[in-house]
């Protein structure tokens, strides 16, 4: 049963990942990335990570991709792009090293875990009162301090983004350009 879900989803996630880096239009890349995020959410369901599957859809496919599309529209780069490579050998070397990296990792993983199956029961015991409750219990006991630190990180990120992207008035911009 699982394999009927796994193989199509794996193929679609790989194809959409390749489309992300292959489309000449940034909007198409963003849409392919949304498809990839949804496929990963399905993978999380297969791996009994129900909370992460929901968060993947809400945070990644929802919030982060909207932010990406917003910036694409804001910068006005939503048109075809010249994909020709100007550096000699950049493309073949990049493809060679990437294929080497991915090939070696896949080979190592298969060699190390080939005979390993998921333990029977899997996460059933950890998830017995629900995946969300299990994660919440860990987050608010064992990982309470890192959890609080992430709240600080999010506040810093929000303030930092506002300061960096704050638009200056044209007259101020001109005088700054003169000084620079």
């Amino acid at each position, binding site marked *: 049963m699982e394999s009927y879900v796994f193989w199509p989803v794996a193929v679609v*996630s790989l194809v959409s990942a390749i489309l*992300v880096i292959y489309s000449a239009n940034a909007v198409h890349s963003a849409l392919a990335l949304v498809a990839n995020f949804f496929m*990963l959410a399905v993978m999380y369901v297969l791996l009994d990570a129900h909370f992460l599957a929901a968060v993947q859809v809400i945070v990644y496919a929802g919030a982060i991709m909207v932010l990406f599309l917003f910036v694409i529209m804001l910068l006005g780069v939503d048109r075809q792009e010249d994909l020709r490579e100007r550096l000699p050998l950049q493309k073949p070397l*990049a493809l060679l090293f990437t294929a080497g990296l991915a090939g070696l990792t896949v080979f190592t*993983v298969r060699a190390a875990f080939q005979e*390993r199956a998921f333990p029977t029961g899997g996460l059933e015991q950890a998830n017995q009162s629900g995946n969300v409750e299990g994660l919440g219990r860990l987050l608010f006991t064992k990982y309470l301090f890192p959890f609080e630190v992430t709240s600080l990180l999010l506040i810093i990120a929000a303030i*930092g983004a*506002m300061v960096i992207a704050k638009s200056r008035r044209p007259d101020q911009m001109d005088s700054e350009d003169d000084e620079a």
Partner: protein
Amino acid sequence: MIQPAQFLALAAMLFGVGVAGVLLRRNALVVFMSIELMLNAVNLTLVTFSKMHSELNGQVLAFFVMVVAAAEVVVGLAIIVSIFRRRPSASLDDVKGLKW
């Protein structure tokens, strides 16, 4: 029955595609999306290990990766906006000097 190795191999291939995107593309936004691809591939690995060890710790770590990724996207996109606002394209080749 799907083995852990198959999930891990898929994650490795997704990571490879992300690396290829960073190396091959010049559009700052697409490079950023490739970084997101790599982060997600690592999350898939963490969740797989979580199931392999019958513990939720891996999922908690994946959750923290998501939080950090969200913060990273916000700041990174703000930097991209402030750099490329007055440029016609979002090409990384245009950003050659420290001053703009």
